[in-house]
């Protein structure tokens, strides 16, 4: 009797774990993780597309899970949704199915070729299908506008004007009012790679340690006098903005959205400042990919096709604030907060001095260490007040080694290179 009972328990346990694998298309995503957003995906975006199990995973755990499944050769995940930089290590290990047929179809269906090409990750075959895009903008509480230096257009701000504005805000309120997401989970590294370096030097890797870079860092030091020291604790700027701790902030649109959607009348949203070389900005792309060994390729393909239809792309924009990768016009009745963010994105892209900076390509699993080069320079120069020249020289050596190890060629806005991108 006992034996039968224990056999029964064993069998039911096995079934409990095994059955979802057999029945459903498992879709693991590092994007749209918060419960409200995940619910939108499950109940609205993935409706009428069959039995899909939408599972969210933090980026580091995602990397570990994919690597574990690859090494074990036992695949449960049929479809992944992740950022460009998170998919790059998988493509590097040849762990993704080529999606060229799908890419051809989407190119015909109105996805810009430049966006589609990002999904090649520098390889001959399509590695992922661009799913949604976003970028970084600045947001300010409307009270702060009265301190804007005279004659300044907030949509065409320069670094000097931002510094002047920060100074006036500090004089008026008694404390620094500008904030950056420089906390442990903040996206500050992207500020340096997509905004600071392109704006001041016109490059990211090649121009890392030149005289223009040094001048930029001096400018940032001047700005930092009016940046709240709590910035090194901020991960999502929507929280300090909503709490009234800062009045002006730079961050990813998805990390500003809650504050702005909650009270769209209280905020202005505008492009990041421009430097001597232009107004650097970095589009962020999340992609959909099918891992090699995926147990349900057909189901995964169906989900990709569904998520890249114009209707679902527009629904995604209005419900979660990520913008379409397809060339479609946003509807008029957009959520007012999302409309504000969309306005700033358009203002950035169409500004006269806009300078696009692409996401790093070809770094494989060294993306984290690449970010560390910039964040270490930031910590040493800005937070610890070490001499700019020495720090840049030391970090440039680390960067040179990193580029040599990964053999990654330059990406825009750096000029193309034959071999690994050189640090000049």
């Amino acid at each position: 009797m006992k034996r039968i009972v224990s056999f029964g328990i064993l069998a039911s346990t096995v079934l409990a774990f095994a059955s979802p694998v057999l029945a459903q298309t498992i879709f693991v995503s590092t994007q749209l993780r918060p419960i409200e957003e995940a619910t939108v995906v499950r109940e609205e975006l993935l409706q009428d597309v069959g039995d899909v199990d939408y599972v969210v995973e933090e980026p580091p755990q995602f990397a570990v899970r994919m690597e574990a499944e690859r090494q074990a050769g036992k695949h449960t995940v049929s479809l992944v949704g992740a950022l460009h930089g998170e998919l790059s290590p998988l493509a590097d290990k040849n762990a993704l199915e080529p999606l060229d047929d799908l890419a051809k179809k989407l190119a015909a269906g109105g996805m810009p070729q430049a966006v589609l090409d990002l999904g090649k990750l520098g390889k001959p075959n399509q590695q992922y299908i661009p799913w949604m895009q976003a970028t970084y903008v600045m947001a300010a509480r409307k009270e702060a506008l009265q301190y804007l230096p005279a004659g300044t257009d907030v949509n065409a701000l320069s670094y000097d004007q931002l510094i002047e504005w920060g100074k006036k805000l500090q004089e008026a309120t008694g404390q620094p009012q500008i904030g950056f997401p420089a906390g442990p989970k903040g996206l500050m590294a992207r500020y340096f790679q997509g905004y600071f370096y392109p704006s001041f030097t016109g490059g990211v890797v090649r121009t890392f340690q030149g005289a223009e870079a040094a001048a930029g860092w001096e400018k940032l030091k001047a700005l930092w006098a009016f940046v709240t020291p709590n910035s090194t604790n901020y991960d999502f700027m929507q929280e300090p903005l909503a709490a009234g701790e800062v009045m002006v902030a730079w961050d990813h649109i998805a990390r500003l959205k809650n504050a702005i959607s909650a009270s769209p009348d209280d905020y202005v949203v505008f492009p990041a400042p421009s430097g001597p070389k232009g107004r650097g900005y970095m589009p962020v792309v999340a992609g959909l990919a099918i891992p090699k060994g995926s147990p349900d390729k057909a189901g995964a393909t169906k989900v990709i096709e569904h998520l890249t239809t114009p209707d679902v792309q527009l629904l995604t924009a209005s419900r979660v604030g990520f913008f379409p990768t397809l060339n479609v016009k946003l509807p008029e009745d957009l959520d007012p907060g999302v409309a504000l963010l969309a306005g700033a994105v358009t203002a950035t892209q169409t500004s006269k001095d806009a300078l696009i900076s692409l996401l790093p390509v070809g770094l494989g699993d060294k993306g984290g260490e690449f970010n560390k080069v910039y964040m270490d320079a930031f910590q040493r120069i800005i937070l610890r007040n070490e001499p700019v020249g020495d720090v840049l020289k030391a970090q440039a050596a680390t960067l040179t080694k990193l580029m040599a190890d990964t053999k990654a060629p330059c990406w825009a806005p750096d000029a193309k290179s034959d071999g690994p991108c050189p640090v000049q």
Partner: protein
Amino acid sequence: MTNDRRWIPYLLILPSVAFLALLFIVPLVQTIWLAVSDNGALSLANADRMVNDINFTRSLRNTFLLTLMVVPVQIAIALVMGSMVAKVGRGRETILWIWTIPLGISDLAAGLVWLSILQNTGYLNSVLFGFGIIERQTGWLSYQTPVALFFAIAVAEIWRGTAIVMVIIVAGLNQVPKEFREAAEIFGAGPWTRFWRITLPLIRPALQSALILRTVLAFEVFAVVYALGGRNFPVLVGEAYNWQNQNQNYSVAAAYAVLIMVISLAATLVYLKAIKVDPERLP
């Protein structure tokens, strides 16, 4: 028959030994190999990267400073609490229960509790503002206020970790026979003398366990620091976490893990040698 019997104890402990070997020793060996190898060959490259990283010296210094500050204070507080509760008759269990509440809270939750007190918009600033001591929000946890940040983390750690020390010390105090104290009292020893000459020597084994446990845990401090200090207050485990999670360099993370293990083992050894326990009093 007797021959067979000799194997029984070994047979009985076999599952636990196998379990530990599988889930502890194998990963340990793998971690050490990860730390001292580079592309499959023996190398000190990871240790070199660890030592030359901008946060290494600071994390090492912060971890040691925190341990040196937190552990003695916790032992002292726990001794006082234990001695106080020893005099209590009714309600002793209730008091002990209340004192051990922080034990039931996870590290990170404890960190977040203190964050809600100490952050800019936190309770501390509200109270200070209410009394007119400060005019506007004051930051206690930023890189510009390293001393306040250090004390904030130390206080949070002391609040969270004293209960475990106290539980061990109370257990030790319960073992001290009443007769010794009564005899000392008859011979005219004051409370201070009784504490130094009788109680303290007799609770040595408990003190040793408490010190080892607490010091090892102090070297592994992470969640409270992460919640309060973020990147402003690097500690060793936090750096291991950063190398693993953010920089995705498992080898340097392993080097940190091995370093923490070596430090913990060394501390344990020091306590075992420094606090001699009478062999007869060992269980």
